[in-house]
């Protein structure tokens, strides 16, 4: 091949990689900055009292309505799991349907040790792996600690869905972009509660500002022994669980 053409090709490759590196450098400080600044001021978190959940699925229903989540039973921003733990250690986990009435009656089954419901949603991690893997900066953390998806720039590559250890994201079948719980960002910006908290009949779900001195969330964190899901991953989840069973992953 002609040496000059090869040289030009190398120059082009050089320019492309320089600009790519430039782009990354531009993103990096922004990410670091977002993480630094946020922990002061408003910093939203969520409480779940596992032993208050009655598995009525009103939260799932309200979430789908409020946020226009597809009705099919495999798209969820929040969902509730039913745990059945047997004497031999076997654990059966099943996400409940929004019509929980049909739950099988297991009373009289002596092999069952204990059984309960666990509400789940995006943990709005302080150190979110989904944000780190997004190649186009479409998913990010707001100053008050909520992880959002920018539908305008999301390319639907599913990296974030793979990266989330909590299975909290799905690909929206119509927009073909990643979708997830936003703590009902449009509601909390208007001083309303997230829809799931609004409709929960037993106060099993609690929402608030972690930094506030007087709020239901602060009382919740003061009065209970708190655990988070998969703490070993150091994602610093901000969904705090009380009375969480060790079998819950």
């Amino acid at each position: 091949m002609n040496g000059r053409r090869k040289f030009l090709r190398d120059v082009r490759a050089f320019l492309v990689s320089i600009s790519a590196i430039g782009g990354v450098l531009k993103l990096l400080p922004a990410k670091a900055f977002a993480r630094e600044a946020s922990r002061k001021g408003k910093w939203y978190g969520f409480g779940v009292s596992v032993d208050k959940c009655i598995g009525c699925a009103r939260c799932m229903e309200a979430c789908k309505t409020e946020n226009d989540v597809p009705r099919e039973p495999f798209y969820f921003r929040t969902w509730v799991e039913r745990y059945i733990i047997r004497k031999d250690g076997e654990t059966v986990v099943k996400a409940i349907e929004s019509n929980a009435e049909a739950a099988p009656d297991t009373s009289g089954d002596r092999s069952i040790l204990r059984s309960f419901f666990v509400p789940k949603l995006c943990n709005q991690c302080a150190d979110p792996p989904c944000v780190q893997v997004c190649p186009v900066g479409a998913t990010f953390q707001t100053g008050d600690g909520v992880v959002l998806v920018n539908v305008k720039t999301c390319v639907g590559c599913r990296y974030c869905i793979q990266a989330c250890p909590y299975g909290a994201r799905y690909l929206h079948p119509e927009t073909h972009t990643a979708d997830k719980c936003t703590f009902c960002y449009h509601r909390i910006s208007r001083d309303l509660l997230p829809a799931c908290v609004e409709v929960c009949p037993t106060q099993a779900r609690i929402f608030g500002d972690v930094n506030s001195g007087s709020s239901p969330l602060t009382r919740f964190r003061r009065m209970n022994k708190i655990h988070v899901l998969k703490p070993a991953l150091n994602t610093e989840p901000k969904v705090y669980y009380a009375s969480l069973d060790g079998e819950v992953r």
Partner: protein
Amino acid sequence: MKKILSKMPDALARLLVVFAALAILGAFVVIVLIPKDMKDVKIQWADAIKAEQAKPVLYAGFHACGECHERIYEKKKTGYHRDLSCETCHGPAYAHTQDPDEVKPVIPKERAFCPLCHAYNPSRPRGFPQINPAAHNPLKACASCHNPHDPKPPTTPKECSACHGEIARMKAVSHHVQLECTTCHQAPQQHKISPRSVKPTKPQNREFCGKCHARDAKDRMANNAPRIDLANHGEKYVCWQCHYPHSPEVE
């Protein structure tokens, strides 16, 4: 300067010109042609936050209803359903608060609705009031006996099974089937009305179970009860640390 230029091979000079042109073109494209918000993620994020905040609200929130439905609002506040939001049952009603005459929220009158929360389910927490929808006063609307906004049972429940379904069902198939709950728990009537503030008693010591299970037990019910030596059998612990009293079994 001139010297250097004239010494430079033609090819290199041309190349430099191409280079400079590329650089200028590149800078032009990046600085002028590409709009600012495509380059700066912070602008994109601010826009995304605005778009998120602008989304419509469908659930008005628990404050919103009190203004116009004061009577129901006040009534619900003191009843068993005080933690339920109006919209938990009536569905999203923001549109209704804006135009109450045109938009009416749903009214869940069908019998299948209340059992979403109250049907018996062993995974539900201890003490939550549960019924068997097929057996509990069938064919009548729930609201004909219970005011949904202040749902007292019309009579105080007689059976403990109303709220302790799992324990009752478990006991019903156990060796203790003949024992009433009240054999072992003294439950004040008030426990059935405000169960969390007034608690029944629980057995305190080994002698309690000994009433029927000690070698010399004389209780009316003790006849069929298998006997153990109260002094030696599992002595360090109270009996229910090993035997679940609602379903005692010996393997």
